[in-house]
């Protein structure tokens, strides 16, 4: 099952609190009113400038094993390596917001609209995450619609991306070769950087919620600042995952 999906820009609009948090503002802090106004402007710009598109393609464990092996640079033990053999459903995915928002961010810096530029960057990063979540919802809906699923219960999904959790970023090469996200305008540079910048790739792994529970004591976890896997796992284990 493979599909290209256009996602309404309204679906990737974040909120002021989220982007201010991303800029380091703590809860309860009241920023300068100009910051609040420019934050709202940044959110509006995301809606205007972004043309979110995504592609997903389901695959089996054997095929994914080869892709995941990539260039042989992954950490010796990783969460993905532990989860995917127990997953009932696997799908590669890619989403992008398109190039316009990154161009505008650069223009704003050049025009010395520094605050708006930084807030737009934060809003766009969050929008890319929301686009990935929106794509996941569509994939799960399509999966359920075609009667797929080895289990009677609705599968719980989590996404993993090259460059995180021990999956070396060089894995992008094999992922791109299999998924062909060039069809939605995402290109891979020699450094494995994606163009447009506001793009996300990865694999969706689905199955019983319990397969996603992993220990966060891998060596690379100590260097991880976000630790957002804890919250994502908590959501799937409590049945509150967006795609489940």
């Amino acid at each position, binding site marked *: 099952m493979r599909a290209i999906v256009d996602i309404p820009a309204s679906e990737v609009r974040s909120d002021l609190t989220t982007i201010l948090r991303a800029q*380091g503002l*703590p809860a309860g802090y009241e920023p300068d009113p*100009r910051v609040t106004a420019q934050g709202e402007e940044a959110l509006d710009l995301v809606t205007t400038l972004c043309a979110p598109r995504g592609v997903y393609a389901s695959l089996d464990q054997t095929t994914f094993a080869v892709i995941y092996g990539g260039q042989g640079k992954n950490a010796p033990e990783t969460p993905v390596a532990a989860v995917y053999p127990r997953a009932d459903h696997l799908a590669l995915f890619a989403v992008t917001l398109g190039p316009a928002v990154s161009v505008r961010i650069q223009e704003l810096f050049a025009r010395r609209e520094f*605050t708006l*530029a930084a807030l737009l*960057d934060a809003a766009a990063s969050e929008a890319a995450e929301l686009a990935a979540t929106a794509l996941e919802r569509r994939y799960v809906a399509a999966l359920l619609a075609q009667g797929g699923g080895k289990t009677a219960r609705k599968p719980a999904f989590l996404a993993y991306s090259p460059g995180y959790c021990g999956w070396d970023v060089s894995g992008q090469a094999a992922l791109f070769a299999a998924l062909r996200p060039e069809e939605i305008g995402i290109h891979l*540079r020699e*450094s494995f*950087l994606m163009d447009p*910048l506001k793009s996300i790739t990865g694999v969706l792994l689905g199955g019983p919620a319990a397969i996603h529970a992993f220990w966060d004591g891998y060596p690379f976890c100590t260097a991880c600042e976000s630790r957002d896997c804890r919250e994502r796992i908590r959501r799937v284990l409590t049945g509150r995952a967006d795609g489940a």
Partner: protein
Amino acid sequence: MEILQQLAVTLQKGQDSQVRELTRQAVEDGVPVQQVLDEGLIAGMGVVGERFRTHQIFLPEVLLAARAMYAGLDVLEPLLAAAEVPRAGTAVLGTVQGDLHDIGKNLVAIMLRGAGFSVIDLGHDVPPERFVAAARESGAQIIGMSALLTTTMPVMRRVVELLAREGLKGRIRTIIGGAPVSVEFAQEIGADGYAYDGVSAVERVKALLQDVSPGPA
């Protein structure tokens, strides 16, 4: 001097049009340009940097002040150039080859300019040779490199190695930053410094400049 204190306070509030006017007024009143820069604009940004460091304000507010700083610099820079007033130093900045992420580098550039440095911003996807050539041609004392990808971090090492091969290491100091970069990585590749954010970059660059070896005659 009251007008310079007023200028510094206005800058801290990020009021760019008032900063421009006060800067003009100070110059017209005969205050030496260097003094307007040091005791007005740089003093104001110094307070902003300290308030950021102590979490009294946050990045978007720092950037409002930086915009105001630029408004004042627009008035002063032609005068500084005409009077051949020396700047705090010159830094060549860029995001390394293969990497397009330049938000962090832009913030460092803004903060360094706000601290009185001359900044040559090479943009993103900058090869090692370009960093070194730009620093050599401009007489820069600092090369600042940013990377957001682990795959592009080795370019930083290549810049340090190239400086060494050309006999410029020590004369041109290197400072690195970016999400995957650490002080340990800086030490490993022989870079002279690491900075976590724009404010710490200014502090680190100032410290490095206290310790720059004299170049060949």
